[in-house]
C-alpha cells in the first residue's frame, strides 16, 4: 500500500520533472504527436524538448533530395566544434509512415552511418504528418507514382521547440550562414 503510494508519487514527480515549465505558445512541441524511432522505440514529439534540434522531413524511398538532407545535416554536425556536437540533436520526420517502418528507418541510419544517440529518424502516425508539416512550414504532395514532392529544409529549433532559423537544402553542404547561426545558438547561454 505504502509502496504503491510511493511509486505513484515518484511517477508523478518524474512526470512533473519531464514536463518542466509551460511550453512557449509558438513551440512546435505544442502539437501532441506520438512517433516511433529507428530502433522501434515509441516516443512523444515533445520528448525532443530540452536540447536544440535540427529537424527536417523526408521519406526513405526518395533518391534525389532526401539523401542530401541527411548528408547536409551530417556535414553541419562535422562543422561544429567538438563540444557543440553533443549539444545538438537531429530529427528527421517521415512524410510516408506507411512505408517508413522502423526497419526502413534503421536501414537509412546504417547506410548513412548515423550516430543513433544524436539522430532520430521518426515515423509519426499517418494522421499527424500534415499537422507536423504545417507547423514546420514543410509542403509536400503525394504523387501518382508513389513519390512525394516536398520542401527540403533544415530547421533549427531551440530547446523549447521554437523555430530559430531555417535553411533550404540545395546540396551536400549546408548553407554557411545557417552553420554560423547554429554555432551561435549553441554557444549562447540559455
Amino acid at each position, binding site marked *: 500500500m505504502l509502496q504503491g503510494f510511493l511509486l505513484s508519487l515518484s511517477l508523478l514527480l518524474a512526470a512533473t520533472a519531464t514536463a518542466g515549465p509551460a*511550453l512557449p*505558445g*509558438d*513551440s*512546435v512541441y*505544442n*502539437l501532441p504527436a506520438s512517433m516511433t524511432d529507428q530502433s522501434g522505440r515509441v516516443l512523444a514529439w515533445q520528448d525532443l524538448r530540452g536540447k536544440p534540434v535540427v529537424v527536417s522531413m*523526408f521519406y526513405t524511398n*526518395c533518391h*534525389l*533530395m*532526401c539523401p542530401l538532407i541527411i548528408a547536409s545535416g551530417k556535414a553541419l554536425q562535422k562543422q561544429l566544434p567538438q563540444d557543440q556536437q553533443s549539444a545538438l540533436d537531429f530529427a528527421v520526420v517521415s512524410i510516408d509512415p506507411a512505408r517508413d517502418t522502423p526497419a526502413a528507418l534503421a536501414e537509412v541510419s546504417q547506410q548513412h552511418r548515423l550516430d543513433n544517440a544524436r539522430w532520430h529518424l521518426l515515423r509519426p502516425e499517418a*494522421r499527424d504528418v*500534415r*499537422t507536423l*508539416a*504545417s*507547423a514546420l512550414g514543410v*509542403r*509536400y*504532395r503525394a*504523387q*501518382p507514382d508513389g*513519390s*512525394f*514532392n*516536398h*520542401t*527540403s529544409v533544415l530547421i533549427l529549433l531551440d530547446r523549447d521547440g521554437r523555430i530559430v532559423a531555417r535553411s*533550404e*537544402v*540545395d546540396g551536400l553542404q549546408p548553407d554557411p550562414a545557417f552553420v554560423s547561426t547554429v554555432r551561435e545558438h549553441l554557444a549562447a547561454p540559455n
Partner: protein
Amino acid sequence: MFAAAVVWFALMGTSSPTTQADFVEVPGGEFRSTVRSDAGDGPRTVTGFAMSRRPVTVREYERFVREQPQWRRDRVPSLVADRAYLAHWHSADAAGSDVDPDAPVTQVSWFAADAYCNSIDARLPDWAEWEYVAAADATRRDARGDSSWRARLFDDGTPRAVDARVDSPANAYGVRGLHGTAWEWVGDYASLLGNADKRGSNDGDRLQFCGASGLSFANSDDYAVLKRVALLSAMEPRSTLGNLGFRCVRSSP
C-alpha cells in the same frame, strides 16, 4: 410501411440539433481540375467519399471548444492560431447573441479546422474533392461550362455569393454553401501552389521539391477558382479570416 420506416430512420439521423452535420455520399468520377497537377492537366479520378452537407456551424464549434478547451481562444498556443482566432466571440467558449449559431464558423485557423474534423472522425477535404463537388450547381454535377454561372462565383466569400441565402438550394450532390459567404479551408491548401518565391526558376523548384515542380493552372478562364486558390495559398496554417470557415469529409470505407 417499409418506406415510412426508412423515412423515419432518416429523420432520426438528422433531426437532433446535437448530432453532427450529416454527410452525403459523393460518388467518385473523372474530373478535370482547374488547377494543374504534376500529373498534367488531363482528367483525374476522384475516389468516392462523404461530404458534410453544410459548413461547420458556430454552434458545432462552440461544442468542440467546450469539449476540447485547449482550443479556446484564451488557451490556444500561438503556434496554431493567430490573435484574431474567434476574437469576435462574446467569450472564450460562447459566441454570444451577436453571432448566428447556425452560420458557418469563421475566424478559425487551418490547425483548428483540422482538429475539429479529427474530433468527429472526419478530415478536411482535399482540394480535388472540394473542387469536384463545388463544380455542381443545383441541377448539374459539372456546371463549369456555363459561363454565366461561373461568373456568379466571383461573389464567393461575400454576402452576394450564390449560396449566401439560408434557403439557397443544395447542389446536385445535396451539398449546400460551397459558394457561400465564407471561403473554406481544404486539407492540402498549402501545397496547391509551388513556393511563390521560387516561381519562374526551374532550378529552384527542382531542388526545393523532391520530384517534379509545383502546380499551375490548367484553365485560366476559371477566375473565381483562381481567386480562391490564390487566397488559400496566401494563408499561413495559423491564420484566420472573418470569411473563412470549413467543412469536413470522410473517406468511404
